[in-house]
């Protein structure tokens, strides 16, 4: 089973690049199983990254996002603190990870 969330960070000068890889099938709701029955849609529909509770980056995703969503985004960190990465599934379940960020 793929990791629900893997985070990589790369810092170049002032800018931090975050690469998130989310393990999720992103079922579109358009596929049918062997019996011809539609496989229900089930996707990650939202992702946010906050720093000390303030939203830096948020995403709303549709079924057209590839399986195992990989998002890269960038920010200039203005303060040290806690980064929280969170995704939300169609069924309401949430997966979150926190990381410390230190700005020197």
């Amino acid at each position: 089973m793929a990791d629900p969330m893997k985070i990589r960070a790369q810092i170049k000068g002032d800018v931090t690049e975050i690469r998130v890889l989310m393990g999720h099938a992103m079922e579109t709701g358009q596929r049918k199983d062997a019996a011809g029955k539609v496989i229900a849609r089930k996707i990650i529909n939202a992702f946010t990254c906050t720093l000390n509770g303030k939203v830096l980056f948020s995403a709303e995703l549709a079924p057209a996002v590839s399986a195992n969503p990989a998002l890269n985004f960038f920010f200039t960190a203005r303060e040290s603190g806690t980064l929280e990465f969170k995704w939300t599934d169609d069924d309401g379940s949430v997966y979150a990870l926190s990381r410390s960020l230190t700005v020197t």
Partner: protein
Amino acid sequence: MEMNVTRRTVLRGAGSLGALSALIAAGALKPIEAYAAEWNKAAFEAHDTASALKGLGAGTPADHKDLILKVPDIAENGAVVPVDVISNIPNTSSIAILVDKNPSPLSAQFDFSNGALAEVSARLKLGQTSMVKAVAKADGKFYTAQKEVKVTVGGCGG
């Protein structure tokens, strides 16, 4: 059930705010998240690009040379097409990506604040050869850039 309520709310227009206010007062929804979710729902459910753009409030956005869309000319695998968008338009607060020929063109919407740069990479599914459009919102105005991506079947060139 939840989806039906939202759809009726969107269709009712002004009257919908009453229902939303009741939900906010009841603590069931956070105000900004509720508004954003409802605002984008019509856009995400649209089956053509024009309706999706209308749902986003984007109308007919103007091309902008500082909105940079990077996509492959030919996608080896339509299930995983890398899309990079960089907006050098000042005060870009959000970027949406649409795939014209997909059943629901609006594929993703990204919002940037508190020091985030207006730049994002994602991977999308393209059902067939299609224009891919990036739409950036900056200072309340909308701008676009688009490129065609050829999707091949069986690995042959388009």
